[in-house]
């Protein structure tokens, strides 16, 4: 029982990181109907900047995180303006491949700075734990969950009540109509990339709190892809639910697969999100909360 509870807590913690990343994907998708495969590299860039501000410059974790998020948002803005804006109106596949190109470029440059070392992200929690009724919980997992909860709440308030949030929702619904109402769709594109960049930076910093940042850290961000597919590409609540589900599934598989299905091999938990995604998609092609595409012929 403790084992189960512990697995679920780990899953919730990691899942909240996936949720943050997934939110970034969904926000970009809703605004521009493109999946940005550049998110992994942007996440690593954010994590690296947190290391830079926190460890090298010596600011505390939270100021470093805030600065890194802002800087990563600027990076995302630059990417959007230079590589993506010229492609408005081109087929989504083409634009998606462009983001792959962007990803490769940014990742190589960031990995060049990471090098072969593991870069620590200084943070208040480290690997220290707290015990709740026999369940040992890493403090950083609680911090992740709380941060995600705060950010998700803030974002939903922003989308619901602010003028800009309303403009973003309008543009997501229908770009032309939104433009006719005076919404600057270009601003919406830029803003969604900036928000997604900042979210990815926060996620990256939290990924780094455990074992630091290394050359392969970017693969964590790819797990947000099963999460958004699970939740539905265009659903903000779906991204959060999908992210947390994927995290929990991964933790459960990591805990139990070794004793029940050893033939699946070591580290099966790492790829289990993709299997879950395949199975869900066969039953529900638009994920749990996605809108089915209705085509007028």
């Amino acid at each position, binding site marked *: 029982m403790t084992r189960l509870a512990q697995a679920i807590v780990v899953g919730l913690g990691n899942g909240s990181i996936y949720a943050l990343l997934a939110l970034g994907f969904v926000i970009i998708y809703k605004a521009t109907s493109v999946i940005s495969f550049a998110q992994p590299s942007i996440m690593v860039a954010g994590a690296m900047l947190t290391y830079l501000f926190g460890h090298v410059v010596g600011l505390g974790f939270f100021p470093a995180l805030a600065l890194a998020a802002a800087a990563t948002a600027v990076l995302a803005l630059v990417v959007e303006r230079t590589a993506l804006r010229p492609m408005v109106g081109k087929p989504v596949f083409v634009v*998606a*491949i*462009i983001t792959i190109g962007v990803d490769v470029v940014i990742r190589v440059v960031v990995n*060049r700075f990471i090098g072969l070392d593991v870069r620590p992200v200084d943070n208040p929690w480290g690997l220290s734990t707290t015990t709740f009724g026999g369940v040992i919980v890493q403090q950083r997992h609680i911090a992740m969950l709380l941060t995600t909860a705060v950010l998700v709440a803030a974002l939903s308030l922003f989308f619901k009540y602010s003028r800009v949030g309303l403009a973003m929702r309008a543009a997501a619904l229908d770009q032309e109509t939104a433009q006719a109402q005076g919404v600057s769709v270009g601003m919406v594109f830029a803003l969604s990339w900036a928000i997604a960049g900042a979210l990815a930076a926060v996620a990256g910093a939290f990924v780094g709190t455990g074992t630091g940042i290394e050359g392969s850290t970017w693969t964590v961000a790819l797990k947000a892809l099963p999460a958004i597919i699970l939740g539905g590409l265009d659903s903000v609540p779906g991204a959060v639910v999908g992210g947390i589900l994927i995290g929990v599934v991964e933790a459960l598989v990591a805990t139990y697969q070794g004793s029940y299905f050893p033939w699946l091999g070591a*580290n*099966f938990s790492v790829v289990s999100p993709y299997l879950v995604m395949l199975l869900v998609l*066969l039953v529900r092609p638009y994920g749990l909360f996605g809108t089915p595409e209705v085509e007028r*012929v």
Partner: protein
Amino acid sequence: MSATTHAPELGELGGRRVRGRPELYTSYRQDQALLNTAPKRAGVTALFLAGVVLPFLVGNDMVLLLATAAAAAIGAIGLNIVTGMAGQVSLGHAFFVGVGAFTAATLAGDPDSSRHIGFGLDMLLWLPGAAVVAGAFGALVSPLAVRLRGLYLAIVTLGLVFLGEHAFKELKDLTGGVGVGRPGPEAVVLGVDLTEPSTLLGLTLTRHVKLYLLMLVLLAVCAVLGRNVGRSALGRAFSAVRDRDIAAAVIGVPLTKYKVLAFTISSAFAGVSGALLYTIIGHIEPSSFNLLMSIRFIAMILIGGIATVSGAIMGAVFITMLPRMSQFLVRELPFLSGGQLLDQHQIEAVLYGLLIIGFLVFEPRGLFGVWLRVRNYWKGWPFSY
């Protein structure tokens, strides 16, 4: 319109060539012929001959690189069938390449080895075997393509790469496991090792040259196959599905059938490509069939030219030569690496990214499009119309 029906004079099938007017087509078949103009016939023949002569003019390592390019081109042609012609975005090509490579290695492998399963079969069996098994996996995966569209499909095929990579790492009897791997298949036909150095008409054919010539011939066969897919009813059905699947269904193109066919054919090409690539490299490592390999194939067809066979070949050659180009860049432009900014591999990776972006933004038809522009310029010269 006369009431009597008569056989069409110019013939819907045969068509007649009119003397002195080489570009007048009197039938659909003529128009769709493989090499429908004299320059094309001459050009392709010249290219092939140049391809045969080339290995005797360049260095040994270059020959090996060209052989790799030819093998990779077969895979690129395959990806171009499913993604270019049929419009089903697949980021999972590396998985099928891997299936082909391991199938071939298992069929050809040493039967007495205690480390891996092997059957010691001939190339005449392992090459089709690789195509069949990889094609079967393609058919197995294709129901996903029937259910999903666009970016959903792209992400799912990306998941396939991760699941496949995991399976390759775990099936140690077949693949040797991470960091160990197994030897690639050997090109032995009816007991004759095709890569054994020999002399022919006074020319010394080294192992590299023979490998290259073998790949060149197989590439020629696969290119004709790919081109024939494109210009037959099959290819027209693929294009219809790509351009508008609902419209295709309305005019009577069964979507499920053609999506399954596209995946199967493309995966079979990928399987052959995988088997041949690792005949050249000689050693298969299970973790090489990763997302990066898929992206490399995508880059080949995007840079080369989408939905064209010649584009796929150009793209494969270009991408395979990229390490050479970045070596050259590092040597000629020392400030790139002199300032410890990026090393050669990093420059190579950055070039990938920038080339993908650059081509998509400025020349979406790829190198094939560049060729079309050059050709049309000289064809009409000095007129610009």
